[in-house]
């Protein structure tokens, strides 16, 4: 069973449907009385860092997420769900989960790129083949929609980077935690394949 953290931060439906399309059952994890312990936890999300974190705290979900990750089971953060893993973000004065060390910073306002970074871009994997990339071509594009990105202290957690204005970490991997800045649930067949590969290894 795949648990999806429900904290009012958008596109849960698409994430649920994508997981279903991959052949896995999912349930929504809210602050109150959950149906059993999931095998995998997915923290999706679009929107603002501060609002997202406040919603997590209000539901006691921050504690649940920490406990889940501590017990070593597979965790996937998507987009805002990646950024919330850090202790702080330039987007908000509100503190994050602090599971990974470092911070979340704004894409460079250099004038020659549009912000948000919105659209399809390539993912350059540090190791080949890339994480959960079986069956996905090397130059496959994934869908991004964000204005901020992770800046982890430990560069060893960076599994892939993407070039937009500058090279930023687009996939992070540390122990049982995987986090992607792109939206696998919106990245067409390659996104579904990535999600499928992750879930196959996790469930």
């Amino acid at each position, binding site marked *: 069973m795949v648990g999806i953290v429900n904290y009012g931060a*958008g596109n849960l439906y*698409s994430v649920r449907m994508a997981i279903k*399309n991959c052949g896995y059952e999912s349930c929504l994890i809210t602050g109150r009385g959950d149906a059993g312990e999931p095998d995998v936890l997915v923290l999706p999300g*679009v929107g603002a860092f501060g609002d997202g974190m406040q919603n997590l705290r209000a539901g006691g979900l921050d504690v649940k997420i920490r406990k889940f990750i501590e017990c070593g089971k597979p965790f996937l953060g998507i987009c805002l769900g990646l950024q919330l893993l850090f202790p702080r973000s330039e987007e908000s004065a509100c503190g994050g989960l602090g599971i990974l060390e470092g911070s979340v910073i704004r894409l460079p306002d250099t004038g020659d790129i549009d912000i*948000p970074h*919105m*659209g*399809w*871009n390539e993912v350059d994997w540090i190791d080949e083949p890339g994480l959960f990339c079986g069956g996905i071509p090397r130059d496959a*594009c994934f869908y991004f929609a964000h204005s901020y990105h992770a800046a982890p202290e430990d560069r060893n957690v960076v599994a892939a980077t993407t070039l937009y204005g500058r090279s930023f970490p687009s996939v992070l991997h540390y122990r049982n935690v995987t986090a992607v800045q792109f939206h696998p649930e919106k990245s067409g067949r390659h996104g579904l394949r990535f999600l499928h590969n992750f879930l196959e290894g996790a469930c």
Partner: protein
Amino acid sequence: MKRRIIPCLDVKDGKVVKGVHFENLEVAGDPVENASFYSKEGADELVFLDISATIEGRRTMANVVREVASVVFIPLTVGGGISDVKGIEEILQAGADKIGINTAAVRNPELVGEAAKKFGSQCVVVAIDAKKTGDGRWEVYIESGKTPTGRDAVEWAGEVESLGAGEILLTSIDRDGTQEGYDVDVTRAVSEKTGIPVIASGGAGTLDHLYDVLTDGKASAVLLASVLHFRKFSIGEIKKYLAGKNIPVTD
């Protein structure tokens, strides 16, 4: 960054109107069939424009989005008749990734900021319908292009960006439906004015038109309707042509 090819589907009372035409056979206006067709063809995103005139028709839109989002896994933008935060929330919860606001943004600019704060800028597409009024001047029209507002389109684009819009869907009223080519000048003026992505719309007729607006017009995406629906060319042909001219597109 890849340039995006975005089919636009008009939806009325839950049915796609002006849907895909296979040679002489008009596919029944099933939104899921149309969306799946274009997704398989390689569409980078889809835009649904709700042209329902009734409240009932609008309600149906959420169901349409839900059905499409169950089987099509690319970004979905929904526009048409959305006028408040509650309406935005309904559509997003149904599985849309972005909402397009046009008339409501002009009447109530605060809505752009409210939506951006609550759902994030990446969800908020402001649609601007622009009509040429003189050399290098375009006026914003609302209510499906019927009502002039006296606002300058380029200035308005800058304003919605500072209010928190994450993207601009720019339609040339003069070119819409003509297949005579995009209004490259207004697209370039808006692209240069703002630092957010601009989707060019209205007037696509040939592959060269797409190339022109993506290069001279500095658009980051093109919206296409009739040329795709009437199978003048396919998304595959578009991408092959653009890639051959060194425009980055997805595979």
